[in-house]
């Protein structure tokens, strides 16, 4: 017999227990059938009826992996069938087969002498002695795990097949003993396994079951379910001398750390701790949204319609998604225990990454594709998802039909071989594309692309109806021009403003920042000694037509979403910006359609005159045939002498419209 020192790994126990409990369950009605069979014979003497039912049980269980309870039922069934068949001339021949099956199933099974006659008992013993060797086991200490040829066996083992066997006996806290034995028929053998103590053990029970157990920071496994409130016992072996730290964690519960002082391991003993009941660990989640119709999902599970207020959720990290009728919102949140987390959701354009087009392999491919698949947390203006297991073409076709996304992203190798550049293509489903070349081996090949995707220019800004200048020697922004609303409220030209909502402002930049922070429909400013309450509105801003730091398909998708929720002049500005985005793609026809379908009531700043001017520009670009209409549009723009380009303080449209007309006239 050789001694083998091994580290006891609780995982093995956990795994073996798991195997036992995870064996295939059986139909509970079989137990009734089994009982009925016994009653039929015992009370009614119905041999055939009993035999039929036992056979039913036999056929249901035979040849399957069985839990010990069911293995016992099957063994008893064989016993019963052997008894029943031995009393029937017609079925007597089957007796031996039952006894052999019984021996194969459980060599240690003892026939029930209350129902089995002496002849059958003798036959079974004879059969067993002809096939198996009797062994007498001595196990010290009791309660360990016995394995014969790698299979778990009962420590009450009495018989083994003749031949060579590897027998292992192990117990947490003890050195494992392994022995190779040779058995011969009719030569009973005594086998002794005495284990030597090498460490302490700690047995724990947790509530809830399924908790992760760590010892000195190393994962040891999870506690398993039992039928009760507490988990099945989880044994931590191999606690060497000294102190140890036990930690138990479970999702949605507070972790527990227990210091095991050196007394746990001096001397080495088995310890059982008080049950470890974990306290729930939850946080609160509030999700607000101005847009209607959103549904909240945490890690893909619906949590109902937004807004939600103080939703109790397990502490932890979640992928939060809000799905709107058009657009979506996604972010990763970290809900802390006993703390509230607030998210303001708004519909964002949904971008779906559909994968790599082509089969080419190249250096850095896996890294790049992984970075693309996990792009979501880096995007601040888009709700991102990645599709796997579908070809890019199929995914695009499906998404186009389903309307689940506004934008699609795919990748294809650059033209050179070997592949050194990869092309990223981002497109709307209407066909507007932006492309970028990236080098897969760069430290962060997507950095520039991500910055571009995240950059959304402002589409409007707060406005009080006055143009301000930084003039040296003045106490604050100096009022150059005042529009009607601000004038009625008392604002005067040629004087500085010194405060906004009680906050001192020395420059135009500070004034604009203060205005950005202002809420409500009015703002209070100080001009001289007067406090004036001015109407606070918004003014439209144009987007640039060819800025390299903007991704125009994203802009278009964003503008479409915002336009769906907007009204009045705000809608008009958004539609003007849509037209400008189409002008980026030189789709002057589409831009023209939008401009002709848009009205802005404002006559100053980015207003109806601006729309008319761009209408003229689009017509001009469409060719000679549209020149008369272009002239008409520019002429229309001249009716708005205060209309501007770019923003409320931008250059006047009129001189440009006039020049354009002069250029077009023969």
């Amino acid at each position: 017999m050789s001694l083998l020192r091994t580290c006891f790994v609780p995982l093995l126990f956990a795994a073996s227990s798991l195997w036992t409990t995870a064996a295939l369950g059986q139909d509970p009605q079989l137990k009734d059938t089994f009982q009925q069979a016994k009653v039929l014979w015992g009370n009614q003497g119905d041999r055939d009826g009993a035999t039929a039912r036992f056979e039913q049980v036999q056929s249901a269980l035979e040849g399957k992996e069985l839990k010990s309870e069911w293995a016992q039922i099957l063994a008893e069934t064989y016993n019963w069938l052997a008894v029943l068949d031995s009393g029937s001339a017609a079925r007597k021949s089957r007796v031996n087969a039952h006894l052999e099956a019984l021996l194969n199933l459980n060599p240690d099974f003892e026939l029930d002498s209350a129902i089995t006659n002496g002849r059958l008992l003798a036959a079974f013993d004879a059969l067993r002695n002809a096939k198996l060797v009797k062994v007498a086991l001595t196990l010290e200490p009791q309660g360990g795990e016995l394995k014969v040829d790698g299979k778990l066996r009962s420590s009450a083992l009495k018989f083994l097949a003749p031949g060579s066997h590897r027998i292992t006996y192990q117990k947490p806290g003890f050195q494992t003993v392994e022995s190779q034995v040779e058995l011969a028929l009719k030569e009973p053998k005594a086998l002794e396994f005495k284990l030597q103590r090498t460490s302490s053990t700690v047995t724990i029970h947790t509530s809830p079951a399924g908790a992760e157990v760590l010892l000195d920071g190393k994962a040891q496994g999870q506690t398993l379910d039992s039928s009760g409130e507490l988990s099945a016992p989880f044994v931590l072996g191999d606690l060497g001398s000294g102190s140890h730290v036990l930690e138990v964690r479970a999702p949605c519960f507070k972790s527990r750390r227990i210091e095991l002082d050196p007394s746990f391991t001096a001397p080495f003993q088995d310890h059982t701790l008080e049950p470890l009941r974990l306290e729930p660990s939850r946080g609160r989640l509030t999700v607000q949204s101005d847009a209607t119709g959103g549904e909240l999902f945490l890690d893909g599970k619906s949590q109902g319609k937004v807004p939600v207020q103080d939703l109790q959720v397990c502490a932890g990290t979640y992928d939060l998604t809000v799905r709107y009728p058009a657009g979506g919102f996604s972010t990763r949140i970290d809900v802390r225990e006993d703390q509230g987390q607030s998210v303001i959701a708004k519909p964002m354009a949904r971008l779906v990454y559909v994968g790599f087009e082509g089969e080419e392999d190249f250096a850095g491919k896996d890294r790049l594709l992984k970075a693309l698949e996990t792009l979501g947390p880096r995007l601040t203006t888009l709700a991102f998802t990645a599709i796997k297991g579908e070809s890019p073409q199929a995914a695009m076709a499906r998404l186009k039909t389903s309307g689940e996304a506004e934008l699609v992203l795919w990748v294809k190798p650059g033209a050179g071989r070997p592949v050194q550049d990869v092309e990223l293509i981002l497109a709307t489903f209407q066909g507007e594309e932006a492309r970028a070349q990236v080098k897969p081996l760069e430290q962060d090949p997507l950095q520039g692309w991500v910055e571009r995707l995240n950059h959304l220019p402002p589409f409007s800004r707060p406005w009080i109806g006055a143009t301000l200048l930084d003039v040296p020697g003045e106490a604050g922004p100096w009022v150059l021009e005042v529009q009607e609303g601000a004038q009625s409220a008392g604002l005067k030209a040629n004087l500085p403003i010194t405060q906004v909502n009680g906050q001192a402002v020395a420059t135009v930049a500070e004034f604009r920042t203060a205005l950005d922070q202002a809420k409500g429909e009015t703002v209070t400013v100080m001009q001289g000694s007067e406090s004036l309450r001015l109407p606070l509105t918004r003014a439209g801003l144009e987007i640039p037509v060819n800025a390299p730091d903007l991704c125009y398909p994203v802009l278009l998708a964003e503008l479409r979403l915002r336009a769906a929720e907007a009204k009045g002049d705000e809608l008009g500005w958004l539609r003007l910006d849509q037209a400008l985005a189409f002008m980026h793609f030189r789709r002057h026809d589409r831009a023209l359609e939008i401009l002709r379908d848009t009205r802005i009531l404002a006559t100053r700043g980015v207003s109806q005159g601006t729309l008319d001017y761009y209408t003229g520009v689009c017509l001009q670009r469409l060719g000679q045939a549209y020149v008369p209409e272009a002239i008409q549009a520019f002429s229309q723009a001249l009716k708005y002498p205060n209309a501007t380009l770019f923003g409320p303080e931008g250059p006047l449209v009129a001189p440009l419209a006039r020049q354009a007309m002069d250029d077009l006239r023969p």
Partner: protein
Amino acid sequence: MFLPQSWMFRIRPAAMVCLATFTLGAQESSLAERLYVSGDRAYARKAYTEALETWNQLLSQAPQSPFAAQALVRLARHQMEQERKPEAALPFLERLKNEHIKTPWAAEGMLMRGRILMDQARKPQDLREAMGEFNRLADLFPDHPALPEARYRLGLAYEMQGQWSRALQHHLEALRLDPTFALAPAAHLRAAEVMDILGDLPGCLRTLQELRLRYPQSSEAKEAQWRLAVRVKHRLQKPVLTSEGPWPNGKTKWLKTPTLLAVGPRGDLFIYQDDRDQAFRLEGADAVAVGPLVKNAKALTVMADGQLALLSAKNGITHASTVPVAGLSYPTGLFQDGWQGFWVSDAKNAALTLVGADGATRTLPSPAATAMASLPTGGAVVASDANRSLLFLDATGQPKLTVPYGKDLPAPFRSVLSLASDPTGHVAAIVEGPFEGVVLWGPDGALLRFAAFKTLGLNGRFRAIALDRTGGVILADRSNDLLIRLN
């Protein structure tokens, strides 16, 4: 299928040629790339000769490769930036246009060629070819990142031609395309200045303010700051002129007969002291001699490169060299225009003399000028005592505006002793007659500010005037040998 043997002979060589061409094409491309990269590495370590040789080798070995186009751009850029020989860059750029028009590098070449031709232009017609390059770039490469700059330079070209509305159109188009392009602050600044020329002062001020907010760190933002402040002060706030007394730091008797003043492109003040026959630059509170010695200089100007030019009846124009000007008897004004030509006025000549950059001289009809100053339009403002009026001329010498002496003043004046302007188009004069003092007009000839010497409490022989960049007026008193600042 069997083919006659003659067919076999025909096919086989053809296939081999195809194969050879394909193989050669790949090899050529690879060689071109390696040569380009090798040249690039040499250039990075400033081994210019090696880099140029390598790129020239690339041009001869693989002239059709896209790398050849890049090499041509690099060779041209080297001539412009390192050798400072723009004309030597032109052959590379022309070859680039002829042989690689379909590559994006051609766009860069067009921009570069346009810039060189524009710099070389000495009269409006010379700009045509440069403008052609910029327009071609816009037509052929509408998505190219160089397009905003091409638009901006078209705007500059139209400015030089005095086509202000078109200039504004192109400056704004450049900004509309991409407000982040490298020259966007410059485009903003020029758009603002053109708006003022077109009479849109609020638009000009709004644009200057926006420039300061958008590009606060740019040199153009600093330029915008003073241009905005001066316009607001002179045209909108119009505070009463008051004397700060001797300036700087109350200094008196520190000059020797200051008779001429001028302000340079960076705002430096230059003083010509007649008794020293020398111009000086004011540095802090001290005068530092600059430029050549010129006896009896009657006009002083600072050229675009910051160098001085002085005008005297005897020598004509003196700067790095001397340019004689025929017929000068009592010179009164001098400035350099956008074409690097000089405008010269003389109190005894009923014409202005234009001395071209090539030395050629021509005259412009004008009344005899007692004083002359430049205007941001490229033209001039001329004071004519004989006509008792100020005449605003455009860049071609055509009169655009006449302002009678004394208009809107409490009393008329008889004579203009000195005339000055600033880059924002303000014109100031020292006048004498029933009204004796300082007068300031806007670029549209409107009277903005004025003060009589008596009201200012000043007594002296003021013979030179300048406008500084904080809205102040500097006067030179030749009898008391000092400067006075009005605020």
